[in-house]
């Protein structure tokens, strides 16, 4: 719709208060988002190509590390007695946690009618899918005989056996499969109208055909939209408890065990909050360079970062509360083994990691109390990096370090990750970034139809404001956007 506003959109100007910069029309929104995807391959920005090259190299490192693991065995990793679960499981929980922020942004913020999710939810949900792919590798391959993983699925077999349905490790199989599948369905459903726009704008006949097939013939019919909106609301309503349940089940992998430091009833909410914390940091890390590269600063504005930083701060405080509670339990329980866990964390051989954790997760996010800091992108970027490291350290302190000092001193030991542990972890970054950069190149990284809906809402609001200013009376006021 033609805007009577003479302002042109500016993709390189920072907006502090609005969720969508002025001067956009339905056409400019569509053209800008689809322009990134439909631009000819030789015109791909150089930074994307370099990023893809590095990511692909890391992916090859990943394949090498996995091949070594399959050929030689779990012995190439540093896990041993007493630490049977090392950074393989740390990385699993780290990646799954990152994935949860994407679902929170897509699903939970949709149910809460928070419009600031609109420009970030597509990329965040893609981040979820790729993070779950990286995470899923670990439980499948840490089993030692990964070719027998199908034993975890209930099927009639000649051994007459069934999986152990009472174990959180079995619950993980169901939870992560469901989470990956539902996230994929939610993401693909959200893409259908955007595929239709790509199909209609594409000029190359093969590009048109591929997006056309993916669009399933979507034509924007009112009856379809009605069913579609209902479906998206239901999927969001299903995904919300799913996120909470999946990370609770992951936390129960530890909490259901008797090891001191693991057997903490606080784990489910504490892990879920920690997941959202780490995930939002990763979303900020991804969005900052992308919006700069593609000139999308009026779509993903400083107001988005203001709100994301607030959520990060809030979940960081919940996580810090968890740390304090663990110490309280250690004292209040009167249990010498629980007390020993706390003493070990403060003064033991791995105390450097605990103090680094307190700094990264407890101290660093406090900078987000200040609005000027929340809207300073360098502060956001560096703090997000610190938080990502901090959340990795949290899982490190909980998982292997608790195992180094369990009940009887004769069982105590040390844990050192090997080079293959690290190569595998770095390799998962290769997998993640290869997938993410490919996504940025061939799929619309912002949900176009939702942005058009947001623009329409803002048009209605400004029209209403003009009418009130002209006539001085209030008719039915549209619900305010942007809060």
């Amino acid at each position, binding site marked *: *719709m*033609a805007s009577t506003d003479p302002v042109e959109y500016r993709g390189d100007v920072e907006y502090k208060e609005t969720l969508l910069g002025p001067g956009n*029309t*339905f*056409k400019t929104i*569509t053209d800008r988002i689809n322009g990134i995807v439909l631009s000819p391959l030789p015109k791909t920005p150089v930074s994307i190509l370099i990023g893809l090259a590095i990511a692909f190299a890391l992916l090859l490192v990943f394949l090498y590390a996995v091949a070594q693991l399959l050929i030689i065995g779990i012995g190439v990793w540093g896990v041993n007695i007493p630490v049977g679960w090392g950074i393989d499981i740390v990385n699993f929980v780290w990646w799954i946690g990152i994935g949860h922020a994407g679902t929170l942004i897509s699903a939970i913020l949709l149910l809460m009618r928070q419009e600031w999710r609109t420009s970030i939810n597509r990329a965040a949900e893609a981040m979820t899918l790729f993070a779950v792919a990286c995470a899923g590798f670990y439980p499948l391959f840490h089993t030692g005989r990964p070719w027998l993983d199908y034993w975890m699925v*209930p099927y009639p077999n000649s051994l*007459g*056996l*069934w*999986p*152990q*349905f*009472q174990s*959180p490790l*079995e*619950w993980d199989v*169901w*939870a992560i*499969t*469901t989470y990956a*599948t*539902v996230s994929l*369905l*939610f993401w693909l*459903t959200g893409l259908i*109208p955007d595929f239709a*726009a790509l*199909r*209609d*704008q594409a000029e190359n006949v093969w590009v048109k055909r591929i997006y056309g*097939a993916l669009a*399933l*013939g*979507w*034509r*924007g*019919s*009112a*009856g*379809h*939209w*009605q*069913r*579609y*909106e*209902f*479906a998206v609301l*239901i*999927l969001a309503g*299903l995904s919300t*408890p*799913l996120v909470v*349940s999946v990370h609770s*089940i992951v936390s129960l992998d530890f909490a259901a065990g008797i090891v001191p430091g693991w057997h903490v009833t606080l784990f489910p909410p504490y892990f879920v909050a920690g997941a959202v914390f780490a995930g939002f940091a990763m979303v900020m890390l991804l969005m900052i360079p992308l919006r700069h590269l593609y000139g999308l600063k009026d779509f993903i504005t400083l107001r988005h970062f203001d709100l994301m930083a607030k959520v990060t701060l809030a979940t960081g405080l919940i996580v810090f509360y968890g740390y304090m509670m663990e110490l309280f339990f250690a004292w209040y329980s009167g249990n010498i083994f629980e007390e020993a866990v706390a003493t070990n964390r403060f003064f033991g051989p791995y105390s450097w990691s605990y103090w680094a954790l307190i700094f990264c997760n407890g101290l660093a996010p406090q900078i987000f109390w200040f609005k000027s800091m929340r809207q300073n992108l360098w502060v956001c970027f560096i703090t997000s990096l610190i938080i990502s490291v901090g959340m990795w350290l949290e899982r490190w302190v909980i998982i292997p370090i608790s195992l180094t000092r369990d009940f009887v001193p004769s069982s105590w030991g040390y844990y050192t990750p090997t080079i293959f542990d690290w190569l595998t972890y770095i390799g998962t970054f290769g997998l993640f970034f290869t997938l993410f950069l490919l996504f940025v190149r061939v799929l619309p990284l912002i949900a176009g*139809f*939702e942005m*058009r*809906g947001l623009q*329409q809402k803002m048009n209605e609001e400004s029209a209403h404001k003009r009418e009130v200013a002209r006539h001085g009376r209030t008719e039915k006021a549209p619900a305010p956007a942007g809060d």
Partner: protein
Amino acid sequence: MRTTIRPKREPKKVAAAPSPVYGLMAQFDGPESLLHAAEKAAEAGYTRMDGYSPFPIEELAETMGKKVNWYPWCIFVGGLTGLATAFFMIYYATVLDYPMVIQGRPYFNWQTSVPIFFELSILLAAFTTVGGLLIGSRLPELYHPVFNVPQFERASQDSFFLCIESRDPQFDRRLTQQFLEGLHPLNIAEVSQ
């Protein structure tokens, strides 16, 4: 030499030959104009029509008399099916087929089964949601007559269309065109089948 002359076959009489025209499509520049046009069309008694937009417009579907009736129930049934599947799977394995005493708990205990009940319910409900969306909307439908209109490309980007189908009992090529012109669209196009 042939002596019989076969009579020329009569063309088969069909009840009503399908019209070569699918309908008439009017293009509008904004969601308000489309909604207004749909209201007027509904008032005029047209029932077989559809509105096309690049983003969902509230109340447009209701104005045209479209409803989602069976869809929520399907999803509910899907979730219940997931729950039932999980229940029978666990019950069969742990009680009927290979019961084992684990940690002194009963063979089937619902507490440890809750996570799997929950996950399977959600999984099947999600499948039913997406399946119901596709089946109810008859997607994938890669061809549809409305795609024959060249400017319809804009429907997924920045334009709004109202199409009154020729199957509508009140459809008349001339009168419906006049009616649409009265709504002041950007243009009117004939949609061929």
